[in-house]
């Protein structure tokens, strides 16, 4: 697998290298954990700046007839609002800022990752787990705060015969507890696998070109076209995973708002 034409081929060909977290500034250790400003943090703040700045610039005109950028902002707003309203009804609109934040944050971070050379924050499981746990804790906290003990009806769907009810309750509890796991790992694994695949195919081009010379350049068209096609697919996946994450958040929030459905 190693090409001998390049020095330091590990960083060029290794598909894992792109997920490396690099320290920019270290702030020392707190309780044995090193706190450092990393490339991951830089991209997070980049996403925050892009989202807030973009929205503010787009709505700066407050035009009655929207321009191109204001249309994008409005369409995104309506898209997320419709998604939430469809799942939870008007009662769920109090979570709109949270859902919009999740959607825009994940979408922009995913799309950042699609730009060659940039870091994909959402390919780190700790980030997606934190976001999924945020949703999970919100659902549980709000569910108990609003419904009290009636929140447990979530685990006992109505219309189930009494003799299989214990089994159903067990399954419901397991599925409820596994939600943050699947919720977070889905985003993480999709981003990770997509970027590894992209990098592997892109690496083939370099290997063919350095290993086989002119013939390698000709054959290298095959992995190149594959990379182009995969990039298109990954763009779709980047959007779709942000959408799925948000949609599932809406569905889980609906459980907190209306348990026993």
């Amino acid at each position, binding site marked *: *697998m190693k090409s001998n034409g390049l020095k330091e081929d*590990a*960083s060029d060909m*290794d598909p*894992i*290298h792109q*997920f*490396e*977290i690099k320290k920019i500034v270290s702030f020392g250790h*707190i309780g044995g*954990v*090193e*706190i*450092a*400003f*990393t490339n*991951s*943090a830089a991209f*997070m*703040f980049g*996403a*925050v700046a892009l*989202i*807030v700045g973009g*929205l*503010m610039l787009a*709505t700066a005109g*407050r*035009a*009655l007839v*929207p321009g191109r950028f*204001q249309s994008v*902002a*409005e369409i995104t*707003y*309506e898209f997320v609002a419709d998604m939430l309203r469809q799942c939870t009804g008007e009662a769920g609109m109090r979570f*709109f*800022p*949270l859902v*919009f*934040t999740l959607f*825009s*944050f994940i979408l922009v971070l995913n799309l950042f990752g699609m730009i060659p050379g940039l870091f994909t924050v959402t*390919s*780190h*499981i*700790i*980030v997606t787990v*934190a*976001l999924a746990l*945020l949703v999970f804790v919100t659902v549980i906290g709000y569910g108990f705060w609003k419904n009290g003990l009636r929140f447990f009806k979530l685990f006992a769907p109505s219309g189930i015969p009494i003799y299989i009810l214990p089994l159903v309750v067990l399954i419901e509890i397991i599925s409820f507890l596994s939600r943050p796991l699947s919720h977070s790992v889905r985003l*993480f694994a999709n981003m*990770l696998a997509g970027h590894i695949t992209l990098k592997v195919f892109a690496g083939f081009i370099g290997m063919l070109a350095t290993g086989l010379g002119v013939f390698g350049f000709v054959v290298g068209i095959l992995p190149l076209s594959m990379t182009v096609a995969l990039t298109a697919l990954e763009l779709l996946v980047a959007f779709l995973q942000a959408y799925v994450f948000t949609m599932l958040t809406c569905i889980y929030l609906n459980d907190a708002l209306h348990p026993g459905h």
Partner: protein
Amino acid sequence: MATATGQTGTVAHGGPKGVFPPFNKDTFGSQLLWLAIAFAALYLLLARVALPRLAAILEVRRGRIDDDIAQAGKLKSESEAAIESYQKALAEARAKAQALAAAMRQELMAAAEQRKKQLEGGLAAKLAEAERKIEATKSAAMAHVRGIAVDTAGAIVEELVGKAPGKAAVERAVDAALH
């Protein structure tokens, strides 16, 4: 994890410690910290500033559109009312014109009738006059006829008999023959 570092050879030499970066626990602390700060900042900025602004724009537009639709509805009902009143006025004018025409026709017909009656009356009077004249002429003629008949009868009888009959007898005979 430590045992894996040396063995997962091809993967390992990418990272500083040879650990798969997403599973590298050393970076979790700072990632979580910055994620919390970034996410909270984004949430606050969106919830306090950006989203209310967008919502206000959409609300204003919705209100404006509703206003415009209401305005259009009002104008439409106004124009409908105008059309209705115009049609009413039209119908009234038409009825008036028809009434006027009918009255005029009535008047004209009455005048014509009157003239006709006058004409007929005049004609009838002239006819009566003419008939009276004819009657008078006829009776006058009849009176002359009696005289002539008497004269003629006397002359005929004188010629036949040779002797003039009595005038009274001839007059009696002529009257008997005439009546």
